[in-house]
């Protein structure tokens, strides 16, 4: 059973599309493993749809499209739709569906399938594949720990997210299962150990970064804290 889930606030920001890519990847991958959160996300999407579309008084009042919109529609009706059908989309590229590290293979959650374009790098039992999210404030990676391995104790200035994707590991606090979503702040340190090996997704060194929406990120006071 998954014991650790993203907080409601994170799920809500995720549905609004206001989290950074690194964090939305984590929520999406967690929900793929966690039916409870998937159901919550479905409900939140319905609520957000209603809040966005139904309270849209402007469109309720104006019956006709404005001229810009009318000409876009006319253009699509006359040309674009036919062009789209005449040029079928590229065949769907499902990306990387599985990763193999040290002879262990793991299926990848859907969210990561187009993110894998680097090599695994590592020392000893710990291997890391950095994801290029383009975010300067955080580092997102897939992390593999071979059987009987551990991550040396480490500290971080900001928060650290660890999402267990496959396998198991334990730290001072608990034993974790695939899907467990652990968000630790700078006051917590941990040194996970695994008996059978595991694959995780991690985001590190992101003070105030990934738990806030874009609007807060653009706040200059936030920048000073880095």
């Amino acid at each position, binding site marked *: 059973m998954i014991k650790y889930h993203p907080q409601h606030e994170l799920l809500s920001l995720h549905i609004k599309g206001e989290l950074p890519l690194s964090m939305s990847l984590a929520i999406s991958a967690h929900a793929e493993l966690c039916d409870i959160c998937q159901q919550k996300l479905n409900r939140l999407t319905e609520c957000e749809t209603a809040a966005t579309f139904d309270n849209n008084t402007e469109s309720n009042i104006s019956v006709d499209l404005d001229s810009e919109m009318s000409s876009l529609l006319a253009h699509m*009706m006359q040309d674009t*739709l036919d062009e789209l059908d005449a040029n079928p989309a590229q*065949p769907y590229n*499902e990306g990387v569906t599985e990763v193999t590290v040290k002879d262990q293979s793991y299926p990848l959650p859907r969210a990561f399938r187009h993110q894998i374009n680097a090599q695994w790098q590592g020392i000893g039992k710990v291997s890391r594949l950095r994801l290029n999210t383009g975010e300067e404030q955080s580092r997102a990676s897939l992390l593999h720990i071979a059987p009987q391995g551990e991550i040396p104790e480490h500290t971080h200035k900001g928060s650290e997210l660890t999402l267990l994707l496959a396998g198991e590991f334990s730290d001072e606090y608990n034993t974790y299962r695939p899907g467990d979503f652990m968000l630790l702040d700078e006051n917590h340190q941990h040194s996970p150990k695994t008996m059978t090996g595991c694959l995780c997704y991690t985001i590190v060194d992101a003070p105030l970064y990934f738990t806030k929406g874009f609007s807060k990120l653009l706040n200059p006071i936030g920048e000073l804290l880095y």
Partner: protein
Amino acid sequence: MENFQSQTAENRYDKASLAKNNGATQLSNTNELDAEQLAELMLKVANLRCKVSFAKLFKHFGPKISAFGNQRLHQQGLAMDLVQETMTRVWTKAHLYSEDKAAVSTWVFTVMRNQCFDMLRKVQHNKEDSFGDDIWPLFESDDAESNEDDFKLSGTLLRHVDELPPLQRQIVQGIYMQEMTQQELADKLGIPIGTVKSRLRLGLEKLKGFMEKHYD
């Protein structure tokens, strides 16, 4: 300029006019369509590549998307881009929509939010990537996407309508040729709306089967 302007609501179910009507569209006076109407429009876009239905969806959702874009993308002046990109995907990805999984408005919201997410990344991180649909799937099964071509059907679909079993034919003709709503058909035939839906689904599946045989 073709006439996309409003006509009276009574005309909406003007029998048989719509099937022949290919461009000069009729739209009801109000933009607010209910969930059932939206689902029927999506089905016609997905299965028949029906532009008239697309125009109705555009009229319904366009202003809503624009308002959302004005909030999120205001500084970038990209609201109209968001309308165009979102409605383009409504057309090209309509086959991924499933009435069983969510309301049309929820699906369009998902398409729009994903698109907006990718556009914001482009602006803020200068990233030309598109991860929105990986993070928030559009309900598809994976094979639906790879079989995309199988689901892109034209009006020629209805050529095979006579090959359907009578009960399914009755429903498909009612919806697509006589332009009745599912509720109207249910009332007329004295059957539950769920039965209308399931016969329609079976009929369309069968029509797709005919098409595949003929165009393999």
